[in-house]
């Protein structure tokens, strides 16, 4: 990938590691801070994505909406409690003609409920547009495209 330095690739991998850690370690309030104020986060089944159908499972258009989701997930939505483990691949990084950083990264999420064995919960990829804000990389857009359209009951926390 022309123009992509090892330092940039490592910085993106670090950002992804921080993202996974915020969710898995339940530092949920820190999760929105990894995005720009005008970010887009969309969790969408692959079938809608590939067919150009706009419906998403979660569709947020600002850091405020991300904070609202965290509030709802932690304070309002009844659910069988669960923890997650994100396993995130190595980012495939490219620079667009207009200077954006794009990254594509595979992920697997394991769901762990009390008294249950761990379950493969979601597998897919992140399609990211990343920018530097005050010297730190942030997601301007993160599309989380999950491969199996069928969801194991519900998704409470972001993926």
């Amino acid at each position, binding site marked *: 990938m022309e123009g992509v330095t090892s330092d940039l690739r490592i910085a993106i991998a670090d950002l992804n590691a921080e993202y996974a850690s915020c969710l898995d370690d339940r530092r949920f309030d820190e999760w929105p801070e990894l995005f720009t104020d005008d970010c887009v986060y969309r969790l969408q089944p692959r079938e*809608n994505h590939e067919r150009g*159908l706009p419906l998403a499972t979660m569709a947020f258009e*600002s850091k*405020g909406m991300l904070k609202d989701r965290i509030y709802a997930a932690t304070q309002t*939505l*009844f659910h069988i409690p669960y923890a997650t483990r994100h396993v995130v691949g190595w980012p495939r990084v490219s620079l667009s003609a207009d200077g954006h950083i794009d990254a594509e990264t595979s992920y697997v999420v394991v769901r762990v409920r009390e008294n249950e064995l761990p379950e493969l919960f979601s597998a897919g990829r992140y399609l990211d547009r990343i920018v530097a804000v005050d010297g730190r990389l942030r997601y301007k857009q993160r599309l989380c495209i999950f491969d199996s359209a069928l969801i194991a*009951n*519900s*998704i409470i926390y972001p993926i």
Partner: protein
Amino acid sequence: MNAPHDQPLHERAPSIWQGETLAEVPFRAYTDAELYARELERIFYGPHWCYVGLAAEVPKPGDFKRTFVGERQVVMVRDSDGTSINVVENRCAHRGMQFCQSNFGNVPNFQCPYHQWNYDLKGNLTAVPYRRGIRKQGGMPADFQMQGHGLTQLRVAVHNGVVFASFDPATPPLAEYLSPAVLKYFERVFPDPSSGREPVLLGYSRQRIPGNWKLMQENIKDPYHPGLLHVFFVTFGLWRPDQQSRMITDPLHRHACMISQRNAAGAGEATQGVSTFRENLKLQDDRILDVVTEPWWNGPTVCMTTIFPSLIVQQQVNSLSTRHIVPRGPGTFDFVWTHFGYTDDTPEMTRRRLRQANLFGPAGYVSADDGEAIECVQRGATVHESAGTYSAMDGFGVGGADHMVTESLIRGMYGYWRGVMGI
């Protein structure tokens, strides 16, 4: 010791419904494999209209959608004439193979990959390779008729762009099946195409819920829970018992509409002692609640329609969906959401419908918890089959109501269910 599972169903049938009222659903209704098999035969494959999809999902000749009636796979296809829609079972007449292995696509005809038996889009058998044998050897019997060896062709009813199918020739016409009262609200969301307001597909959500399929019918026949379970409903006034509301049902009590009008919310009698009410909850970005009244609402901001056994039609403010219940054994069903807008929507209205979709679906602010609650009910039922529910809100009767503090719609459905099931 009694071992009820060792007895054939017909011998223990009289004891299945032990309660004296329709408020007491035996948990066995959610867990028993024999009862479930009877439900498939008498309900899903019996004289009932099952939802298969929207005509807008198959706009062009040869467009197909693979879906389910009960547990059987069916294919809904737009015929080559471009107007009619056929539904055939996904099962080759030759060896029973499920010949269609894609959820969507476009084909000139159906061909089974195994031995290349060909069918037209109506399901008629049109070609059998080596039918006359090779070099006068083998082949089908001389008197083999193509006719009578086609795919199972289901009866189809298309009403204002919504497609239903039935395996049973005895199923009454759809309008009669729905009843005038329910049809009226069905046509509110799905009007005659001459209105210029036809469904446009926005996309799908699919969830597998570890619960009995009837629990989802019950969930949308239960106006009592939304203002308690769902914080966003009670807090933002989308559904709470101090609203003007109406519960209606058909004369057989199998379908229902829960209709209501949004109010100003805030604290009041409906929120006293309700632990989920958050008086001071303010969203950081409230665009997901950017509700704009549409002329066709004519008052109600919400109408949730259950069509027995497999469909829920959702209008919740500007968000619209069909929700398809696909049973997968007594303890599991798939729940497939098809969100849609209308042909006359502005881009702003489309965006609004998509934003409000955050409230619904497998992650929705007012619906993710329904699936979770159903899973928990199923768990409770599974480990104590001799117990049951007690849905006695508003007494023991069935029928409609002009308030939300009732479970009469659930009881009504079980009155019908007991008749069909002979229990």
